[in-house]
């Protein structure tokens, strides 16, 4: 019986090839489109994740002093992690095998001066060796395309720990006239006084990499120090570009007169274990009596840029996928309806020969299933070539808030392919079944005379 049903379905498919090809094309192209859109969405997710976790040095898990995420900026002394907190965190993280890297970070404002004028900066202090590992992490290299943003000079880790160094964002470097970073092979730093009224003052300022930093320590006292500009980096938005700086953690701690830090970041070997590690961490922190808050990297207040961009991309992609689904459903439904109407007398005849309504419905569903399977296979192949082709072309991809330089690199994920395939297949079956259901329920006389129309 089943074989007989398949034979009849196969014979019927060859009866109206043009229409079936059109239906199959709609299904196949819809599937290819869905693969492209989900592949693109997955790419954006990876880009944003790599940029946030590694590029922005956020970490997979971040520990703040209790209420420090909201209140550190207004009162750094009270809402920072002190030296004892940091030592305890170091000890606790060493006990958790899932952790790959960890380290403290400090952020804060100050002034950078070239001897003639000063500009405000907002700096991040991080251990240079930790920064090297993060920037060279395989995930960051794959999805952040190695976009450290370095435009000139060298990263902080190229210099010894006892050197007073700073990296400036390109806009800030231009504002203080320090566009020529220090050569690490050369120890020569000019400390000559600068005549700020001289005609060649710009050349003189550019000729040496020395700057002075000033800030207010967390105890309210003004502090300062010298530093050599080692590198100039790009930032994703104009506001940051005119004020961002990066220093070794110890140097920024010295500027603020503290041994504490703003936060403590943790990077995992396997990011699927974030919840598990947070639970372990919370338990150990409570035992140690630390008054801290623990956040996953995608906590909206912590990674507002990721959160906003991710939700925006999801909305756009869901919208496009919904349109694709509607087009596929309407195409299949229309095609099936036309076929069924044309074959109404045949259905009536089959019914009069003893075929049940259920059998008729199954026959039509099998026909649509055959078209869908062939279309999905063709669509998968077409989608694969489409994605591979677009990836090979290397179209530029500019994500707002992320350093320019990314390329379109859609993801071909077997899990996504199978999930999208099942979705399209079920959609086709449901659309076809809907069309046949209405016609098959008519009585034989109506079907044979065609009056059901």
């Amino acid at each position, binding site marked *: 019986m089943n074989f007989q049903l398949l034979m009849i379905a196969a014979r019927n498919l060859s009866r109206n090839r043009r229409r079936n090809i059109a239906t199959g094309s709609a299904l196949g192209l819809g599937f290819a489109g869905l693969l492209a859109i989900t592949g693109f969405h997955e790419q954006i997710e990876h880009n944003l994740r790599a940029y946030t976790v590694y590029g922005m040095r956020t970490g997979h898990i971040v520990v703040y002093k209790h209420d420090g995420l909201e209140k550190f900026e207004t*009162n750094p*002394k*009270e809402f920072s992690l002190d030296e004892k907190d940091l030592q305890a965190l170091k000890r606790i993280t060493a006990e958790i095998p899932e952790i790959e890297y960890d380290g403290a970070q400090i952020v804060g404002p100050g*002034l950078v*001066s070239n*001897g*003639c*004028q*000063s500009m405000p900066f907002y700096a991040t202090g991080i251990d240079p060796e930790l920064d090297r590992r993060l920037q060279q992490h395989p995930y960051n290299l794959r999805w952040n395309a190695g976009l450290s943003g370095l435009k000139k000079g060298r990263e902080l880790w190229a210099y010894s720990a006892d050197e007073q160094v700073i990296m400036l964002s390109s806009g800030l470097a231009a504002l203080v006239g320090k566009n020529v970073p220090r050569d690490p092979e050369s120890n020569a730093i000019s*400390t000559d*006084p*600068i005549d700020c009224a001289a005609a060649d003052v710009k050349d003189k300022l550019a000729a040496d990499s*020395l700057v*002075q*930093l*000033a800030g*207010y320590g967390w*105890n*309210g*006292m*003004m*502090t*300062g*120090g*010298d530093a050599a500009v080692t590198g100039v980096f790009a930032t994703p938005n104009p506001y940051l570009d005119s004020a961002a700086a990066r220093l070794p953690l110890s140097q920024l701690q010295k500027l603020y*007169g503290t041994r504490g830090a703003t936060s403590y970041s943790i990077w995992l070997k396997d990011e699927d274990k974030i919840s598990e590690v947070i639970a372990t961490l919370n338990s150990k922190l409570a035992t140690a009596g630390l008054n801290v808050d623990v956040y996953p990297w995608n906590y909206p207040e912590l990674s507002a840029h990721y959160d906003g961009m991710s939700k925006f991309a999801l909305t756009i992609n869901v919208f496009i996928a919904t349109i694709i689904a509607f087009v596929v459903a309407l195409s299949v439904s229309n095609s099936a309806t036309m076929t069924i109407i044309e074959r109404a007398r045949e259905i009536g005849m089959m019914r009069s020969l003893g075929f049940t309504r259920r059998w008729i419905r199954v026959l039509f569903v099998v026909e649509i299933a055959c078209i869908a399977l062939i279309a999905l296979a063709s669509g998968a192949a077409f989608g694969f070539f489409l994605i591979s082709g677009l990836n090979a072309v290397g179209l530029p991809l500019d994500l707002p808030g992320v350093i320019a330089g990314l390329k379109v690199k859609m993801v071909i994920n077997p899990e996504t392919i199978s999930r999208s395939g099942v979705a399209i297949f079920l959609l086709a079956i449901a659309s076809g079944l809907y069309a046949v259901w209405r016609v098959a329920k008519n009585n034989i006389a109506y079907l044979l005379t065609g009056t059901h129309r």
Partner: protein
Amino acid sequence: MRRSMLKAGVLLVATQILGSGQVSASQAAPSPEELLKDSDRARGAVEVGMTWNSNVETIDGKNTSKIVYLIKAKGDQAVAETVAPEASKGEYMVFKERNLWYVKPGMKRPVVISARQKLSGAASNADIVSTNYFRDYDGTIVGEEKVEGVDCWKLDLKAKAKNVSYNGIRYWISKSNHLGLKAEFLGVKGETFKHAEFKYDNKISSAGKERPFMSKIVIKDAQKADSNSTIVVSTPKIIDVPDGSLDVKNFIK
């Protein structure tokens, strides 16, 4: 009857004019320039050399900091040397006209800083040394008010340049001895972001004449009730300050 009604009307109008705080031409108010020059003199803007100590205590929420400066001033120049705490000893803030440098022992060059730095909450850098509102602001007398029972002229000051400490100031200067008793410091949009009260219990003698000199300034943040700075000024003296000795070059080692 008609004459008495006329008199009453004139009296009413006069009362309204006086009560509105507007200055009538007949009151012969001193010029704003004269008021500012006199009030600046009691806050350190003197042509002869002077020195005094400024003890600055800043409270910002639960945090308190104390700094002691030794100030030397002459004309447009001033130097604030940090005397305490020990960790900041030997640091200088050097003022020349409207320019300001921060010098720390061991730093290869001075840091050019703005007089507006640390404007909210605590005292700004410019508040701890001599004040020269006459040089930095255009003043207009806009009324008369009492400050703690003392009759004052109320002045609106507008910045003459972008690099002065504040965009504008409302300043109350006593009528009797031309001392600035109260000030409201205005932000870019004209909003008051901090206010200050001044006391003059110190005396300085110059050319055989004894004059009052500032003794205490209390500066409060208008937005944060728990943020304020108190500057206690002690031992003001006229001293000999050689020309050029307050130049920033002399403080770079």
